[in-house]
Each structure stands twice: as structure tokens, then as C-alpha cells.
């Protein structure tokens, strides 16, 4: 396994092709959860974990079941099903096994199942014909990228609470403006890695 290639994949997924700032996916959670640093951190950890597990699972389902059966065209439905089932299952199990973790992170699980990044990652794994390890690396990279976006946004918005923002820009409009500016900054990473 080429470790350098995997590292490139992680960097590319987290910075160069950051899902939030270059592809503008998953914005609902991004704006909803980035109000406080604490929730942003919780969401980041949960999100990355769920993303990696769902990427691995959907890769296996795609490779060993869907390709032999010639039903690749069903992948959107199937991947949504896998993610939803996984999230529901981990919700149930986590509640019993570690209630502390559940109260810290479990509340974000329901939000995750409807996120578009979590669906986009398995789909692009298939599209780019990644292998198993590469898929997980890509999921990890995307998770890190999303966490990065959340944490940057949360730290800015916590400061923004105190700033004297013009009346009509208060709240969500200002958050969109800030997102646009960060997205501009992220274009600086483009061309850093060409896979």
C-alpha cells in the first residue's frame, strides 16, 4: 500500500476539495451546528467516525453484492439505506453501552443521517474507483475537512456574537458572508495536489 498516495488523498479531500468550502455540500449542518465551539467539536468527531464506517460498509456492499448483480444504478438508494441503518443502529447501541458518550455525541447522530456529504463520499468512492483502504482514507479526509470547516466557523461565529454587525446582516446572513470569504481563501489550496 502506497502510504504517500493515501496521505495525498487525505489532504486533497480535507483541504483542496473541502466539501463545505469548494463543493458547498452539507451546509445545513454546517450552519446549524457552528454556533458554539462545544457542539461543533462534538459534531466533528461523530461525523468523521460515522463517515468512515459508512464508507467502508458501502464499499463492501457495492463491491461484493451490487457489482456481481449488475445493479450499480441502485447505489444512491442503497447507500442512503446503509447510512440510515448504520446511524439508527449505532444510536441504539451507544445509548445502552455508553450513555455518557450518547449524551455528548448521540444527539448529532440523527442529523447526520440526512447529510449530503455522508452520501457524497460513498458515491465518489465508487465514481473514482477507490479501493477499500483508499475509500476509508478519502472518508477520513472528508471528515477532517468538514471538522475543519465547522471549527473555523464556530470560532469565528463566537467572536461574531460580540461584534457590531449591521442590523440586516445579523445571524445567518453574516454567517453566509463569512462562509463565502472562507471559501475564497480555500481556493488558495487548489492545484496543491493533483491526483
Amino acid at each position, binding site marked *: 500500500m502506497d502510504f504517500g498516495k493515501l496521505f495525498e488523498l487525505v489532504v486533497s479531500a480535507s483541504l483542496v476539495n473541502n466539501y463545505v468550502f469548494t463543493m458547498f455540500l452539507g451546509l445545513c449542518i454546517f450552519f446549524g451546528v457552528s454556533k458554539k465551539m462545544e457542539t461543533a467539536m462534538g459534531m466533528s468527531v461523530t461525523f468523521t467516525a460515522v463517515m468512515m464506517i459508512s464508507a467502508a460498509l458501502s464499499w463492501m456492499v457495492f463491491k461484493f*453484492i*451490487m457489482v456481481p*448483480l*449488475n*445493479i*450499480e*444504478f*441502485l*447505489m*444512491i*438508494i*442503497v447507500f442512503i*439505506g*446503509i447510512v440510515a*441503518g448504520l446511524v*439508527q*443502529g449505532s444510536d*441504539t*447501541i451507544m*445509548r*445502552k*453501552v455508553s*450513555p455518557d458518550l450518547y449524551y455528548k455525541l448521540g444527539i448529532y447522530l440523527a442529523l447526520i443521517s440526512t447529510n449530503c456529504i455522508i452520501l*457524497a463520499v460513498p*458515491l*465518489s468512492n*465508487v*465514481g*473514482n*474507483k477507490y479501493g477499500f483502504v483508499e475509500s476509508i482514507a478519502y472518508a477520513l479526509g472528508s471528515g477532517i475537512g468538514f471538522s475543519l470547516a465547522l471549527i473555523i466557523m464556530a470560532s469565528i461565529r463566537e467572536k461574531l456574537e*460580540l*461584534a*457590531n454587525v449591521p442590523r440586516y446582516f445579523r445571524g445567518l446572513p453574516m454567517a453566509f458572508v463569512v462562509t463565502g470569504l472562507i471559501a475564497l481563501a480555500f481556493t488558495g489550496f487548489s492545484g496543491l495536489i493533483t491526483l
Partner: protein
Amino acid sequence: MYDILSLAGDVIDALRLFDVTQFIVPHVGVGGEIEAKPATEIDMSKLLRGSLIFLAGMGTFFGLVLAAAAKKFAVKVDPRVEQVLDCLAHAHCGACGYAGCEQYAEAVVKDPNVSPSLCTPAGAKAAEKVALITGKKAEVKEPIFARIMCQGGRDKAVKKYKYEGVVDCRAAVLAGGGDKSCIYGCLGYGTCVRVCPFGALSMGPDELPVVDLTKCTGCRKCEAACPKRVIEVLPASKRVIVACHSKDKGGETRKHCQVGCIACNICAKVCPFDAPKVESNLSKIDLDKCRVCGLCAVKCPTKAIADFITHRAKAVITEKCVGCHTCAKVCPVEAPSGEQKKRHSIDTNKCIGCGICTARCPVQAIDGTFNAAEVFRLAAEKKKKAAA
């Protein structure tokens, strides 16, 4: 008819020319690189069977696994916790002293020593419901409201410099204790408005917060957030308060603000119930003694005492009046008038409903004030005793 047929033929011809397969479909979006197979190779019935079986199988598999997980990992939750949770205000304000509504619901169900009436935002009705669910006794609690203990708005209080920083009291107070000359006064940058989870506070036109009593639940969030500690949460019935926290000497307070308490002691002198007391240059009304008659608010020379009762029941002199003129002598606002030994009358414009005359009238001829019923009852008891 022919026209339409020929037109349709033309359209079909045009569509034949427009052969889709000759274009390379670009990879749009994610997952675009599925290789299409020539139509002849695909066995439709097999494909349909495969996909149906797979989808149904996946659905059944997830259904079974999730059902099994739900059974195996079932967490026993006391159903009363959910019921209690439904009664609470869901503001997560922390007025009960717990981290959130769930934690309080759990504590009140499990711990017999936790009172069911701790959720002030939800009010007395919710407390009763919680008490019913948990089998405890609800304490009857008077609702409490946030009161702003400062009336020194834009025109009334002096500012010592022009503040142009972050618009927040917590930031303003860092700059030399804020821009107001009075170090006890409300800064008016709306921190309390922002922390209020119920939207009960808003900034008034004179840069002072205004409490919307229909929304205020007495959760004390604003009280904790105010860097000047100018908000107090007080029982709803105590509607006459010294709305000033200035402990400066009288002259000093006067320089800073037109409506500050100058510790002149007039309120303490006029009060028929001995409620106000001046301590360290600030009058404080003893809420247990105060009967909200509003006399001190009328007599206060700087109007530092706020009276939230807009309409008081005014005194009325009944036919029992013997014309002794006592009421005219005791009245602090000179409302009663009349000739000796004739029925007196009260000027309703002057009367403030303080009830002093009702209490002093030797024949209980004055009715209508807040204390009339009590005074009449005491007098009747006295008569009974005297007769016995």
C-alpha cells in the same frame, strides 16, 4: 389533419437524427463514471429480479438487525421521566439548578428530595403536573419577574465618556467600568436582552431594558449576565421598588443621575408600614413589610421609587361618615375634604389609594382601598370582644 401528421413525422425524423449515443456524456457530479453496457447484454428480467431481491433483502436485513438491537440494547427509561419532561419549559435555562431539562426530569423522578416546582419558566401549572406524576407535593410559588433596578436612561444619567467599542455591557464594563458616571447604573448595551431565552427583554427608547411580564419567567439568566448586577428577580406582587442601586452619597448621586436614590429618608418617614430603610446611602424596601400602597413612590423627591401599579382602587367615603376630619388630617396627599360634622368627600384625582385614611377612620366609613376588607374585619372582631 394532414398537417399535424406530417409535423409529427418531421419531429420523429429530427429525433432520429439526434442520436444520443454519438455524444459522450460528461461525468457530472459524483459517481458519474458508471460504464454503460450495450443494451443487448442486459437481461432485463434477471436484472429486475436481482435488484428487487437485493432491495427487499437489504430492507429485511436492516429491519431485523435494528429490531434485534433495539431489543437487546433496550435502555430502561422510567416513563415518568418522559412525562415530566413534557411538562417542563424546554428552555434549558438552568433555573432549576440542573444542566438541562432532561437532567432535572430525571432527578425529580428518582430523588425524593427534589422539589417538583423548580421549573420556574413552566410555572405553577407545570409544577402541579410534575407533582402529580412524581407523587410529590407542589409548593405554591409566587411567580417572580426580573426588575431593572435603574431608571437612569439616556436623558437622565450623565455619561463620563463616549464609548465606541463592542456593543455589549460585558465589554463596556471593561473600559473603566462603563461609560455611565454612576458606577451602579445600567449600561444599556443589551447583554440581558441577548441572554434572555424567552425574548422577554427588549431595549426601550431611553436605552434601558424593558421587561415584558407576559414572557418573563424569572429564570434569572439576565440577573447572572448583567455585569452591573442591576437586575433583580423579585416576587410579582411586590410592585413598588427602589429602582436604584447607587450607594453614593446623595449629592454625588444627584450629579450623576436625575432619578437616583439620594438617601433622603423621606420614604422611610412616610411609609405607614415601616418598609423602606436607608442603609449605606440607599433606600431598600423590606418586601415582607411592603403593602404596595405606593405612597413612597409619590413622595420620593427624585422619583427613584418605581411604582408598577398603574391603577389603584381609590378611597370612597360611605354614609357612615361622622365628619370627624381625621381622614383629611392623616392623608399624605390632601385628597379628603369637607366641613366638620358633615360627610366628607375624596378628590379621586388626588387620591393614591394608600389606605391610610381607611385604617385611621374611627367609624370605618372609608371603603375601596386595598386594605378595607382587612380593616373592617379587625374592627368587627374588636367590637365582638368589647361586647363579650
